[in-house]
């Protein structure tokens, strides 16, 4: 491996947190010989001004009139040109909504082997990627057989680590060669649930299941989430009942989250739910049934009635914080 290119994703005035995680993962596999480049598409260097703290020395900032509205095909074409310009043989993406549409396209363009949604990367004799399969019931180690490789990394799993001392970053402007043909799909509007933090990006997630019993009772879950500064999640049973929107569903047919803290309240722990949260760093379960399977993956469990436990727990955490 000679050159690694990491995809940096802008958000507001800065970058998404996952971008720093991806830079850090790149450093961990780069060794002494490989050089790391970042590519930021349709953004400005100001958004990436602090990447030097994470040890990133080179960033390509690509802009073009055809990139004004987000188009996955045009962004893929741009990243490809950036990769060619620096001779990248390894590309790293976030395994999120944008990343999952980009990486396979880049893998095809580069004739590269590709592993999605990795939870581990190590470089010994080639790069070995670890990824969960069968809804997290097993994991596989995969070796890429091609000279070039592309990976996407599950958010919140790799730690964003600063370099021992910050480096200065070289920003290079790039104008990719694009035609209307490259813009075969385009995002025409974005509807963000303003004010609410998405379960995918939250560091703390408090989820409620059927045990919460009604939509109104979710105020207990919301209060705890608020005190923790986190997001509300839900089991499928709750989403199917219409108590919470599908965007909050955690699990196999919902979102896969890896927050620092996951609190499961009144959730039994069906395998399809655990598929979406078992890689969380710390798991707390509150359930009145001591045999509920959720306790098998919990670091801390409280056997009790969530209607009594949650208000007390919320108050106590508010005191400590």
């Amino acid at each position: 491996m000679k050159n690694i290119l990491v995809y940096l994703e802008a958000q507001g005035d800065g970058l998404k947190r996952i971008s720093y995680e991806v830079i850090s993962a790149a450093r961990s596999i780069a060794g002494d010989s490989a050089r790391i480049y970042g590519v930021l598409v349709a953004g400005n260097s100001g958004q990436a001004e602090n990447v030097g703290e994470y040890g990133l020395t080179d960033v390509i900032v690509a802009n073009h009139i055809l990139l004004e509205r987000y188009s996955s095909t045009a962004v893929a074409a741009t990243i490809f040109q950036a990769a060619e310009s620096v001779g990248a043989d390894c590309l790293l993406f976030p395994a999120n909504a944008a990343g999952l549409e980009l990486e396979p396209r880049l893998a095809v363009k580069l004739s590269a082997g590709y592993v999605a949604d990795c939870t581990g990367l190590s470089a010994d004799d080639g790069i070995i990627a670890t990824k969960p399969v069968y809804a997290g019931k097993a994991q596989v180690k995969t070796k890429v057989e091609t000279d070039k490789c592309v990976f996407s990394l599950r958010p919140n799993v790799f730690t964003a680590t600063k370099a021992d001392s910050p480096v200065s970053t070289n920003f290079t402007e790039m104008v990719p060669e694009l035609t209307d043909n490259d813009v075969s799909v385009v995002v025409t509007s974005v509807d963000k649930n303003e004010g609410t933090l998405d379960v995918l990006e939250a560091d703390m997630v408090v989820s409620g299941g059927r045990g919460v019993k009604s939509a109104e009772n979710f105020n207990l879950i919301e209060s705890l989430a608020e005190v923790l500064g986190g997001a509300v999640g839900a089991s499928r049973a709750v989403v199917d009942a219409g108590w919470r929107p599908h965007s909050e569903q955690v699990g196999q047919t919902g979102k896969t989250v890896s927050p620092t803290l996951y609190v499961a309240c009144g959730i039994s722990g069906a395998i399809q739910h655990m598929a979406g949260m078992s890689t969380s760093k710390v798991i707390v379960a509150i359930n009145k049934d001591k045999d509920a399977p959720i306790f098998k993956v919990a670091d801390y469990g409280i056997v009790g009635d969530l209607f009594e436990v949650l208000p007390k727990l919320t108050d106590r955490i508010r005191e400590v914080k």
Partner: protein
Amino acid sequence: MNILVCISRVPDTATKVVIGSDGNSIDSQGVKFIVNPYDELAIEEGLRLREKNGGVVTAVTIGTDKSTDVLRTALAMGVDKVILVKGEENPDSFYVAENLAAVAKDENPDLILLGRQSVDFDSLQIPSALGEILGMPSISVVSKLTIEDGKVTAERDIEGGCEIVEASLPCIISAQKGLNEPRYPKLPDIMKSRSKPIDQRDAAAAASRTSIIGMEIPLKQRAGKILTDSDDDINELVRMLHEDAKVI
């Protein structure tokens, strides 16, 4: 409209996973296989579009003789024809994408529908890889789809919201939950599906680009401390989260 639906055959989601003797795949003894749940949404969407606009829905799977069961399910749901591309037992994603692309070139569909991900390896890559190979637009994780006069408008889930994406036919769409409620095949249709023909083809060899070097069941490394709902225990939990786990 000519619609191609790509379906994969996966273990039932409630299956207990046991690693096989090769150490690289699961032991499929006694495992029940089903149509990938997201692919049922893709089939359903294809059928609804046909009901509205007319046309033909074809289901294809890259698999082995065993995969006839999922193709029969697709027939029972109502697809017009099915194609089995016979190839390797545990193909890598590129192999599948290359072979799906070959079928797409033969069938010349206006629309290719897939699931968001296959719930076995969750590799999440075939829809966009196929788009790149075929030079077609693709939109992944779609929860609402409208097609009018060759123009595709899709609602796609993103972090913290959704976005509206536009493209024109021919186009590739991967289905997310919420797109529709798949129908259950009716018994007479299940019976009828058994005698319908299956178009069988041989897969073209495509070199795998990745290889599995080991599969393992992740070790449970959780402390698993169980407490009661007493005030003391709740305080103790908060102390442990604060001081031991240092997460709050």
